[in-house]
């Protein structure tokens, strides 16, 4: 595909820092006396799609807002695009796009006026892309933002975030209110954006299928910390679900190295295992007189088990 055919206008290459796009150390954030983030350490390399997973209330939105300086932090350090993020400012703002979880800003503005207002601040604003997305997503430029549905507002927020051609795109549950067509269109845009070298996307979502489609690295936020960040393929490689079946059922799950979780359901024993040795599994099945079935868990299965 030539540059002219790309949905995004290619821009002058920007010297990306050798350092990670994002580096967080010991980030602490509390609301009143409730500690939401308890010393987050996290490093995000450039050119990756990162899926931030966590249960409701885990602190995903808080973490993303702290990263961008939209919420004051109580401790730790955040380095974004090579500089400390004490408050949003500086030239790097031209390189950041953000889609908030709920877009409730400027309800009095019309869609066109809002985009004109925003575009005026950016050095690189892809008017053609914005116009194409508005048309494709059937957003009426003359309509007031307050009159848009939640899904339409989310579309507008995505247009606003992508049009400045950001190097770092932070998306907080961007597809939660989108219909399947719009979700698919959004994912297509996202994947197109990622074709450009050095583009990084961090997005929190509960729709794990989107992360699988994007081949994202998965970061899990739990208990106020990032528990791990691994490529999806590695997760798939390292985690297996072993299903042991025998007629007499299971009084308790046998001890096994790497077992993260075990569930007994009638004659079936399901175990989620990390770095399981197939030989050990087979030996266990033989010893217990059970039939062994090894499955690759989906990301959703992993999320349910681990989050």
């Amino acid at each position, binding site marked *: 595909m030539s540059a002219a055919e790309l949905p995004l206008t290619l821009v002058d290459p920007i010297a990306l820092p050798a350092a990670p796009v994002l580096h967080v150390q010991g980030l602490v954030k509390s609301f009143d006396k409730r500690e939401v983030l308890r010393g987050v350490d996290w490093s995000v390399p450039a050119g990756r799609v990162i899926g931030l997973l966590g249960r409701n209330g885990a602190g995903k939105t808080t973490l993303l807002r702290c990263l961008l300086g939209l*919420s*004051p932090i109580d401790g730790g350090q955040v380095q974004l695009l090579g500089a400390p993020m004490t408050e949003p400012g500086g030239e790097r*703002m031209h390189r950041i796009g953000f889609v908030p979880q709920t877009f409730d800003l400027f309800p009095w503005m019309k869609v066109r006026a809002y985009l*004109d207002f925003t575009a*005026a601040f950016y050095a690189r604003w892809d008017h053609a892309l914005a116009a194409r997305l508005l048309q494709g997503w059937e957003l009426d430029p003359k309509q*007031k933002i307050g*009159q848009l549905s939640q899904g339409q507002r989310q579309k507008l927020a995505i247009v606003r975030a992508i049009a400045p051609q950001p190097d770092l795109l932070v998306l907080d549950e961007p597809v939660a209110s989108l219909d399947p067509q719009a979700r698919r269109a959004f994912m297509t845009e996202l994947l197109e954006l990622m074709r450009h070298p050095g583009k990084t996307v961090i997005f929190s979502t509960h729709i794990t299928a989107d992360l699988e489609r994007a081949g994202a690295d998965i970061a899990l936020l739990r208990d106020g910390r990032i528990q791990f960040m691994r490529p999806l393929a590695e997760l798939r490689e390292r985690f297996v679900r072993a299903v042991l079946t025998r007629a007499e059922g299971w009084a308790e799950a046998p001890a096994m190295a790497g077992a993260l979780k075990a569930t007994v359901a009638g004659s079936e024993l399901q175990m989620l295992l990390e770095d399981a040795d197939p030989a050990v599994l087979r030996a266990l099945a033989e010893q217990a007189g059970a039939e062994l079935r090894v499955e690759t868990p989906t990301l959703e299965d992993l999320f349910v088990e681990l989050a």
Partner: protein
Amino acid sequence: MRAVWQLWLQLWTRLPVLAVLAMLMCLTGLVLALIAMLDARVAYVGMGFVAFASWFWHIGLGQVLRGVCRPESFLLPGFRARLAWLGVADVAQWVLLPGVLLVLAGPPHGALIVAGLVVVAALGLALGCGRRVSLAIWAVFIAAGWMPRLASQVVTVALASPWTAPLLMLCAALLIRYALAPLLRIQDADTPTSPLENASIGRNSQSALDDAQARRGAWNRWLGELFDRAAQYALERSLQAYRRRPSAAGRLALVRRLLLPHDNPQALALRLVLVAGMVVIYFLAVMHRQHFDAAVVGAYAVLLTMARFPQLGRGMLRMRPNLADLYLTLAPATRGEYQKIMVDALMLLVPVSVLTALAYTLLGSVLAHAAEPARMLITAAIVATSASLVALAVHLIGPEGSFGRGAVNLVLIFGAMGAYWGGYWMLGAFGLAWGALALGTVTISFGGGVWYAAQREYQRRAPRFDAPLG
């Protein structure tokens, strides 16, 4: 510059009427300043126009900035720098241009007038940003009222002193910093308060433009906690009572606790104490005037009471989506039954308003050593009753648009003021008993009639749960 232009345009798109009027007034002032080159005395009139225009313009600008300065806006590249440039353009428009014309006209005290223009702009901006600096202006009036001779001497010296203009500029700079610093600080959003909360005490200082909440300081947060605790206590008591003996009255009390969380006895008492503080300041300010009329106390008490109802109108609109949940919880047999519950619940506002007006009037009459406190109290009680009924009625079924509501509020306030003064005269002319009877017959029957018709109409209408359009 495109971004600065876009920022400048915000006032024109948000408050076009205000922007046009302020600009016309400013142009008039500038033309007068031009004419003043022939006659220097006209320059003062011209600058008066410019100052008025600047005051209104900057109140609007402050409100617009409250809406624009959200944390997400700071992700816009160079947002602060663009705001600073907007400030430069604003100074050029409202201070430098009139200042140059003034210098050309050459009247005395030119520097002072320019400094005054800066202070006026700063005050307007601070007020628009939701900062209660108007209290600081009162302090000046209080001091002047206490010691008029000294005040006059101070003014004479100040007019002659070369330090006055720089001091005024310093005051303006402090005011601007005081107004803008919270807007430029990124902080976590306050927990939203009930849309029906009473806004007259600063508990819920929202911009009428877009419901953007003013950033609350430590004092307001503490106050908020007190009100919330009182609301929680009242809700728990109502719940206990309902659990002990479920009844329609108990259910209505619960609905009231939900819709009007801060209209419980404890919160009312707290509000009265707070307002009493403000009233004391006010009386200190006005009672030293030479022609102070204590009867005005009742009029102001009614005015303060009526300030509650515009918030009710706006709040009912914003509450609509939440009311769907209430509808499902109440599970009424008919839509009319639900509407009746709403009407009955909101009816609480009438006695609350009357009690509030009486308390304010009583306090004011004591402070001002009113000659006829009974006459004031009776008039305030009757007028507050009828005005509350009418206000509640028009906000239930009245216009939804901000312009229509604004017009209705104006009519209500002027009507209530007229009724108070008319009633006060009647009680004086016919005696307390006959005057009260006549006033009550006219106003309460009018208020009751309007209320009766409005609540019938409200019950006839289908409940609406759609979110108001922005």
